[in-house]
């Protein structure tokens, strides 16, 4: 069954309170009316006596007028009033019962009969012109009239005496009735007030709880108590909706917080990458500042090659050509991505140039897995490693050494490796090279490797990495691990 809502409850409660108070007041009123009616009966008998007295007086008056004037109007009045008196007399008790008033009424009835009989006889005698007879009967009627009046006074006195006695008891009872009714009304009022207060509390307390919960929600407290669920009215609906809304707000806030956290970490990563990019740019700028203008050098080398070819110096021409190709490759933006095959070609040019310089002192091996050749990689990541291997790994080896460059696919990664058979590095040295440049020693030490690491990280958005494996006396192996999904250009 559908329960009443708040409006219905308010109406029902108000109606209940009104009903309680109204019933008490109504009952008190009805009781008072009942008592008032009880009082009314006190005077009922007196009214009968007054009726008789009135009829008697009018009968006697009309009789007197008739006997004096023999007026037909007076006779009509006499008949009218004597008839009424006779009717009044019939209302009196005529039975013999052992009660003072009943016997008095019986006396009165008998006297009225006597009066009416005398009056009737006097009228008849008047009509018969029997003066002595109507005079005698009229005088008898007059004497009876005195007795009747005396008896009526006496009866009324008894009535009043009895009524006063009855009223005395009645009065004390009336006081009790009024007091009890007043107490009842007061009690009903208190009861009504108690119900109103109780109902108001029950109605407003959940609203107050909701308000407190809303206030707490404003402060960020999502765990403040809510009105117990299950109320079948509007407040229950409000409470359920508020709980749902609070949960939604909680979830949205947590998602917002997680998103902000993610954005913050991404921003930090971006800042870090930007920082790396700035540092790379700085390094490139530094390189440009410290080198001869590469375009001038490239043009010059191209002119040298033409000169060597024209003079028949083929080896010099090849040198100029390979150097120019290498410089052309190196002058392109280092942030671009190229295929591994291009990188290996660049390494081969560089090795040719190194052999020209060092002859057969160092042995270079380049090998590549065909699957790895087409993998995208940041440009110029292998040449610095080869340069490091020769310049640092094998520099102090009198007997020379081997530099092995390889490209292969391992699982979902392409691995570009540069290994040397040099003296290797101590852990401290390795940490120094991989860490931030320190003030001590060669400020350019490790720049090539760190650049490679930063560019690989930047190009692969952190998914690629550079491993450095080295120990003293066991050479150094630098492996660039690139995801096969590709490199960001």
């Amino acid at each position, binding site marked *: 069954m559908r329960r009443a809502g708040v409006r219905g409850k308010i109406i029902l409660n108000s109606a209940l309170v009104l009903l*309680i108070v109204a019933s008490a007041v109504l009952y008190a009123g009805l009781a008072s009316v009942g008592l008032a009616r009880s009082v009314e009966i*006190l005077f009922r008998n007196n009214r009968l006596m007054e009726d008789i007295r009135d009829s008697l007086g009018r009968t006697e008056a009309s009789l007197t007028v008739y006997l004096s004037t023999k007026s037909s109007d007076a006779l009509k009045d006499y008949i009218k009033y004597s008839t009424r008196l006779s009717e009044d007399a019939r209302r009196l008790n005529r039975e013999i*019962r052992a009660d003072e008033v009943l016997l008095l009424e019986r006396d009165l009835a008998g*006297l009225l009969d006597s009066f009416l009989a005398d009056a009737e006889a006097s009228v008849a005698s008047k009509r018969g012109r029997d003066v002595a007879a109507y005079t005698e009967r009229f005088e008898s009627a007059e004497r009876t009239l005195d*007795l009747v009046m005396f008896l009526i006074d006496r009866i009324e006195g008894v009535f009043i005496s009895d009524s006063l006695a009855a009223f005395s008891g*009645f009065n004390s009872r009336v006081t009790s009735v009024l007091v009890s009714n007043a107490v009842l009304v007061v009690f*009903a009022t208190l009861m009504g007030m108690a119900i109103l207060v*109780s109902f108001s509390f*029950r109605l407003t307390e959940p609203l107050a709880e909701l308000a407190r919960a809303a206030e707490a929600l404003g402060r960020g407290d999502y765990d403040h108590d809510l009105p117990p669920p299950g109320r079948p009215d509007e407040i229950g609906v409000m409470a359920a909706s508020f709980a749902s809304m609070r949960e939604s707000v909680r979830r949205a806030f947590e998602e917002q917080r997680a998103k902000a956290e993610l954005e913050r970490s991404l921003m930090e990563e971006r800042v870090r990458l930007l920082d790396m990019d700035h540092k790379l740019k700085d390094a490139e700028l530094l390189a440009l500042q410290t080198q001869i203008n590469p375009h001038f050098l490239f043009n010059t080398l191209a002119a040298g090659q033409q000169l060597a070819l024209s003079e028949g110096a083929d080896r010099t021409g090849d040198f100029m050509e390979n150097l120019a190709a290498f410089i052309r490759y190196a002058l392109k933006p280092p942030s671009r991505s190229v295929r591994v095959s291009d990188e290996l070609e660049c390494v081969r040019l560089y090795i040719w140039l190194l052999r020209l310089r060092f002859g057969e002192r160092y042995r270079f091996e380049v090998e590549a897995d065909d699957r790895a050749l087409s993998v995208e990689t940041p440009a110029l990541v292998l040449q610095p490693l080869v340069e490091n291997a020769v310049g640092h790994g094998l520099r102090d080896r009198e007997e020379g050494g081997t530099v092995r460059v390889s490209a292969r696919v391992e699982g979902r990664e392409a691995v570009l490796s540069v290994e040397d058979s040099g003296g290797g590095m101590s852990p401290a040295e390795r940490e120094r090279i991989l860490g931030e440049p320190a003030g001590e020693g060669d400020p350019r030490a490790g720049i090539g490797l760190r650049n490679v690491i930063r560019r690989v990280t930047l190009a692969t958005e952190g998914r690629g990495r550079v491993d450095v494996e080295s120990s003293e006396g066991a050479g150094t192996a630098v492996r660039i691990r690139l995801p096969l999904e590709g490199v960001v250009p």
Partner: protein
Amino acid sequence: MKRAAWILAALFGAAFLGAILMNARLVDQSRRAFAGGVFRETSRIPKARYHLVLVIPDDDDSFFSGLAEGVRSGALETDSAVQVFRYAASSPADSERFFEIALGAGVDGLIMYSPRGEPVLRRAEAALRRGVVFVPVGTDVPEGEPPGFIGSASLLQGFEGGRRICAALGASARIGVILPAGGAGPEEEEPLFRGVSASIQAFPGARVSALTRARPGTLAGEEAASAMLGADPSINAIFCANSRDTMGVAQVIVDLNRVGSILVVGADETPEILRYIEKGVVTASIVRDSKWIGREAVLAFARIKDGGAPAGPVEAGFYVRTAEGRSP
């Protein structure tokens, strides 16, 4: 909260129900009182065979209360409803009005206190004409000795009183006699006094020193005794004819500290008189048996109503109450 609401509701319900029941009871009581006092629920009052009227003076003399009691007692035996009319003792003429009312109303019987001097014979004849049984009652047989009279015979009462005083005081008896109020004719002609006078004849030297008639009223006995003793300090005995005067005299004797020096012979018996007898203030009380008179009057009425003829005057007699008890 819900439990408190239920408790409140239960309390209110109980209070409301209690108030309703109390109101109903009180209103019902009021209505019953009105019904008894005003409505005269005739169904609750049994019918009677005869309507009987008793006309007596409105006097606190125990003779009349005993008379009314006797009439009521007789009414029960004869299935009669008794209506008592009391007229002012100071206005005995009012008795005539009640007589006429009784006759005019056509009652069955009329028992009427008829002291000497009242027109008892005329009333008897008038009642006879109206078919109303008339039974006069009183202390002494009225003039003309109307038929059916029932009385206490104050002549014998006076004789017994005088005899008792003289038996106690002998020739030294100086007696004050207080006659009841309302009598007619010379005081010396009162049967009561004549009875006293007759009794002291046997005790030469004893005499009636004072004779007075009490005025109507409650304090008449005291007044008469004080005046009598003040006028004649030699009085050593007082004889009075009714209970009211007896109590008045006894109080005077006590007030004057003359208990034991003045012998009091009173009349009738009431709790107060019995107490005075017990304390020795009153030596003896000649008790008129008015209850018997009243009852006998009703029985006489019933006999006449049933076709019997009125009997001659009947005297009820008396008994004497002393500290030793009742005799005879």
